């Protein structure tokens, strides 16, 4: 059968079906379905959702203030009777409410610092990757140099010089983390630049800006989303480490790291002061990692970006 016969078979069908357009299934939809099948990721998402709700609304519902010192119950273990469900610390502050408000800080740092590194990293990396040549070489050498700096030392320096303002912590951590994001985005941009569909766009005279907007960015999103989800726990951990060292948020604000630091000191006499914030911290880290892994599998690179 030649193409003539082909066409005559197709035409009447085409006419009849012209009214009904078939709905397409975008790669995002496919990825979403794959993600839903990943039980660890789904459970983790529910847990994180619950965590967010608790952290935001919990302290409003609990009768204790985070800095209220309850002299009747200093260092008392968790009990329903005392009203302090997760116990109190050495000064009588309710552990639960402190952990939840501390959670607000930790999660906020996680999100904001990640956002900072996202914005800087993606624009830097995509520009370097797309325009290539000397600009790319220079930009990447800068990244290499900054990478080589001992960043902890840097942050500590910043803290000492500028004080321990919370905004500074956001920016400092974000400013360090963008490096990885930039490298990943640059690598992905490079490989996207050489694909045939970008070449096809160039052959049609599509402008550079439109190519970046229409072809490069949507295909970068997959990698970026995964990386962002995996950066958040990293950032929270960094903040916790700083707080543990005593360089993080200042009193009366607290974060999980600071709480863990305090709790470590009373570890033997009042273990719940250490255990409770540690558990919250660990669960959060695990959940984000599972979600990140799930996203990576769902947006599987084998399936074209």
């Amino acid at each position, binding site marked *: 059968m030649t193409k003539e016969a082909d066409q005559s078979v197709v035409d009447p069908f085409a006419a009849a079906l012209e009214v009904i357009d078939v709905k397409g299934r975008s790669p995002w939809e496919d990825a979403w379905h*794959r993600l839903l099948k990943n039980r660890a990721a789904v459970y983790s998402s529910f847990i994180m959702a619950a965590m967010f709700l608790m952290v935001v609304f919990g302290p409003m519902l609990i009768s204790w203030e985070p800095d209220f010192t309850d002299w009747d119950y200093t260092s008392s273990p968790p009990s329903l009777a005392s009203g302090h469900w997760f116990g109190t610390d050495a000064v009588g502050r309710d552990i639960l409410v402190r952990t939840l408000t501390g959670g607000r800080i930790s999660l906020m740092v996680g999100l904001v610092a990640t956002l900072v590194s996202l914005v800087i990293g993606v624009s830097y990396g995509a520009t370097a990757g797309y325009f290539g040549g000397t600009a790319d070489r220079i930009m990447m050498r800068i990244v290499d140099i900054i990478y080589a700096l001992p960043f902890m030392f840097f942050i500590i320096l910043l803290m000492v010089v500028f004080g321990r303002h919370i905004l500074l912590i956001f920016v400092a951590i974000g400013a360090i983390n963008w490096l990885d994001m930039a490298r990943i985005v640059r690598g992905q941009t490079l490989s996207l630049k050489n694909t045939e569909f970008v070449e096809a766009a160039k052959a049609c005279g599509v402008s550079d800006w439109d190519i970046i907007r229409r072809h490069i960015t949507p295909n970068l999103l997959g990698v970026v989303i995964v990386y962002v989800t995996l950066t958040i726990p990293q950032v929270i951990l960094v903040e916790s480490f700083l707080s543990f060292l005593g360089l993080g948020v200042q009193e009366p604000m607290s974060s999980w790291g600071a709480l863990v630091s305090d709790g470590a000191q009373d570890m033997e006499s009042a273990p719940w002061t250490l255990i409770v914030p540690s558990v919250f911290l660990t669960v959060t880290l695990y959940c984000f990692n599972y979600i990140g892994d799930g996203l990576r599998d769902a947006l599987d690179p084998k399936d074209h970006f």
Partner: protein
Amino acid sequence: MALLEIRDLDVGFDTPEGEVHAVNRLNFSIEAGVILGLVGESGSGKTQSVMGILGLLAENGHVSGQALFKGEDLLQMNASELNQHRGTEIAMIFQDPMTSLNPYLRLDRQMIEVVMHHRGMKKAAAIAKAIAMLRAVNIPDPERIIRQYPHELSGGMRQKVMVAMGLLSEPELLIADEPTAALDVTVKVQITHLMSTLREKTNAAIILISHDLGMVAGICDRMLVMYAGEAVECGSVEQIYYDPKHPYTQGLLNSVPRLDRPDDSGLEAIPGNPPNLLSLPVGCKFRDRCPKAFDACSEKPPMQVDEDKHAYRCFLGAPS
């Protein structure tokens, strides 16, 4: 006794979208010294059937049926038993030399690995044999080449090295999966010559998987045409090229561009696309694209065999 006899081979894969039937009830046999061409397009199941036989399926794959190699069923063997046959009596050449050769190992190490392990050869002897084999596949300066890494060679050379590796253990059965796919025409000719020579010298049997009908015509004795996981026609090469009985085979032969046909003749294409292996149609799987389909084709067509052992799976010409 046939060297390899396949009975009712089924290969399937578990995927999130359902069960993919890659191969359905495949039957064929091959004797020593025969070159069998396994022909089909993508999705026909030709590669997966062989992977199934050799126990090389992906994790979500399963295989059933019988694969009798010199009387022993390969499918019933565990990994270590299979290993005794794979690499020694049965050798396989894969399609893409770039991914089949370990980029981190020098060629000499890769080549002698199998021979030393299975035949217990000493290193010096194994290397000497490898060099001799490289020379046999027309690689110039083999003493130097063998000490190089895969990426230092061109595509054609790499494939020749793959062939040499396959022949090194003097297999009784060589399975070549599209051995000349990405290669230039001139290299293709060299590789096919090599396989012929192997058969002449050692009486090895060769299963050549290919969609290149020209190459198959030049070197194969018998041919098996596959479509959507099933064998649709089987016979000697002459029978199939000069007297194709199955409409798919006929369509395939008509759609191949040939240098010896008049220039202006259009290529006759088979309309439509191969079926989705997740949901195979009932009855004849070629029905939707067949110019000669009729009502009976909604049932499963029988495999007809004539006196010259030319078999095809179709209702046409069947005694009613």
